[in-house]
């Protein structure tokens, strides 16, 4: 990189951060910084950069994003989520800190349906927050727990971060879906264990009888089929991730709404309008981040940073992943997960090669790290949302959230050090996603070493 390129990168980053803190929306701050640097430091035409905004979103795989957002919107607005809450209550409501346990289990189930942590926060807050308040749960703890649990939606299928990561990084989305399931379960278990030992006692309830459990399961069974439809459709090769999202919407509209919430049909146009307006927000960020990342790559930024990382960590995949996690924890405090993936993808691809890291493994580590960014200041969107809904000061919710950070650190460290924690499921169910193939001569499954 020439000195000029270094200055250009610094100027671009400084303008983006400065404008961001001045209140300019992220997408506009990124675009403005790119336009300034392109005019001052390069010979690239602005028309090419505007074309890059278009190219950034002209990817059919990204169509899965609005589909999964719409599924979440329909499930929440049609109030179907209450059935899943009741099932979670029957499963774990009798444990110590029962409602906190319900929050974790519900989030795990709901994450398998919507892929949107925002929908998760809204769903659980409307149903459980009043009850948690009645049982004397500290609103700050409630907000912290709900926000932390909602991040699971970014990890387990159908995770929107996984769709974007797979689409931009050319990594199997099915593989990312499966590999993200284990960290999602680990975070849910971590939150349950924390709540059991350190959460408020709540009002102890009796264990649900087998009949109660069966009734609750029957009521929730149809919504809970959605993750199986999505993942099953992808694994069996029936659908692409995009088509799986569309099939999930059809399932909600043709099966769930008629059976569980018939009155919601007249509100369907509103749901489409809201979801239509919602999906544009992350994808505008994708468009601008894509132009930002493209100029960054043009200025050879990823080469330089990967050079620094190589200097510090050599070719050790684990050390490289810890360093990129450190960078993304810092960056994730200031930047939303989706633009962060787009901007850092060229660097991530360099590091995957440098450390001979399995791309699906790297993807899941990045996704879990960026999901954690949803509850860290100052841009911890889910913590902001949950504290607002719990009507508690954001600073108090943040303090209550600090001990929960340990769970994320432990999960991230474990999945880095033990790749099989994430890779066992795709290796078992979808080995092609890891680059494995069946040798036509010996019929033995062969997987690349990484």
């Amino acid at each position, binding site marked *: 990189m020439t000195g000029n390129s270094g200055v250009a990168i610094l100027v671009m980053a400084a303008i983006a951060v400065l404008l961001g803190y001045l*209140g300019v*929306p992220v997408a506009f701050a990124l675009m403005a910084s790119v336009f300034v640097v392109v005019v001052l430091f390069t010979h690239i035409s602005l028309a090419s950069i505007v074309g890059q905004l278009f190219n950034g979103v002209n990817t059919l795989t990204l169509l899965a994003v609005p589909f999964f957002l719409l599924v979440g919107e329909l499930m929440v607005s049609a109030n179907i989520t209450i059935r899943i809450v009741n099932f979670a209550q029957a499963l774990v409501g009798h444990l110590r800190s029962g409602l906190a346990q319900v929050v974790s289990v519900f989030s795990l189930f709901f994450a398998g349906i919507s892929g949107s942590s925002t929908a998760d926060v809204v769903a659980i807050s409307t149903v459980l927050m009043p009850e948690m308040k009645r049982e004397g749960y500290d609103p700050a703890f409630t907000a912290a727990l709900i926000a932390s649990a909602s991040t699971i939606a970014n990890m387990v299928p159908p995770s929107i971060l996984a769709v974007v990561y797979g689409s931009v990084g050319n990594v199997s989305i099915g593989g990312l879906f499966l590999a993200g399931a284990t960290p999602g379960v680990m975070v849910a278990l971590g939150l349950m264990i924390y709540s059991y030992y350190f959460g408020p006692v709540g009002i102890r309830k009796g264990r649900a009888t087998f009949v109660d459990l069966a009734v609750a399961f029957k009521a929730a069974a149809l919504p809970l089929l959605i993750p199986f439809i999505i993942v099953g459709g992808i694994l069996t090769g029936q659908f692409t991730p995009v088509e799986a999202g569309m099939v999930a919407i059809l399932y909600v509209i043709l099966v769930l709404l008629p059976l569980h919430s018939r009155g919601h049909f007249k509100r369907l146009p509103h749901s489409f*309008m809201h*979801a239509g307006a919602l*999906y*544009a*927000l992350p994808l505008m960020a994708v468009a601008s981040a894509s132009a930002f990342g493209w100029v960054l790559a043009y200025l050879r930024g990823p080469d330089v940073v990967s050079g620094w990382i190589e200097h510090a960590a050599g070719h050790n995949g684990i050390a490289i992943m810890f360093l990129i996690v450190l960078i993304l924890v810092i960056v994730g405090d200031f930047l939303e997960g989706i633009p962060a993936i787009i901007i850092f993808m060229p660097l991530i691809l360099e590091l995957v090669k440098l450390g001979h890291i399995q791309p699906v493994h790297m993807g899941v580590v990045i996704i879990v790290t960026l999901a954690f960014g949803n509850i860290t200041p100052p841009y911890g969107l889910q913590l902001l949302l949950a504290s607002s809904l719990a009507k508690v000061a954001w600073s108090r919710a943040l303090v209550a959230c600090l001990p929960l950070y340990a769970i994320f650190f432990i999960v991230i460290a474990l999945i880095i050090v033990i790749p099989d924690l994430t890779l066992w499921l795709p290796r078992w169910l979808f080995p092609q996603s890891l680059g494995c193939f069946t040798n036509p001569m010996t019929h033995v499954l062969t997987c690349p070493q990484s």
Partner: protein
Amino acid sequence: MPDAIVFETDRHLKWRALDGLERALMAACGLCLLGFTLAELGDVLGRMLHHPLASAQEFSSGFFIWGIFLGGAVAVRRDTNFRIGAISDKWTGTPRLVAELVKRAVMLAVAVVLTVFGYLNFLHGFGSFMAPSETPIAVLYAAIPVSGLLIAIFVIEGLICGLRNGFAGELTDVERAVAASTATDQPIA
């Protein structure tokens, strides 16, 4: 979820005359989502019935791209685009005025670049065609200058209203983040 389509918050920064445009753009976003859902459905059904719809993916792309850029434009009026917590929201007096003017000037400049250079790309787009329908790709490229123009209109609306009535918003940082992440300014619970 509440029914309101047009955002009522920060009314002092908006003209009633543009409410119809916001409502129309929201409807367009919903229609785009419906459009590419149906196009994907047609694609899958056609494949299952061994009569693949060759143009289904072109329709999907078209609705998807237009939905993004129209949604991005209407988000400017609703102030729901992703933002980092703005330090300037806590300022008052002249510093606040300067910050608001800079913010809107930057957004206006971006909108002008999108409109002008997006229009140039649109003109070039008549030389490239989507397969298999041979439709000029300009049909998709047009979304960017249209979005730029709409963004410029909404930024100018906010600028003029703000200079007349003051820029201080009704929402706190947290409430704005909630509005941005739920696409509604109504109480959720």
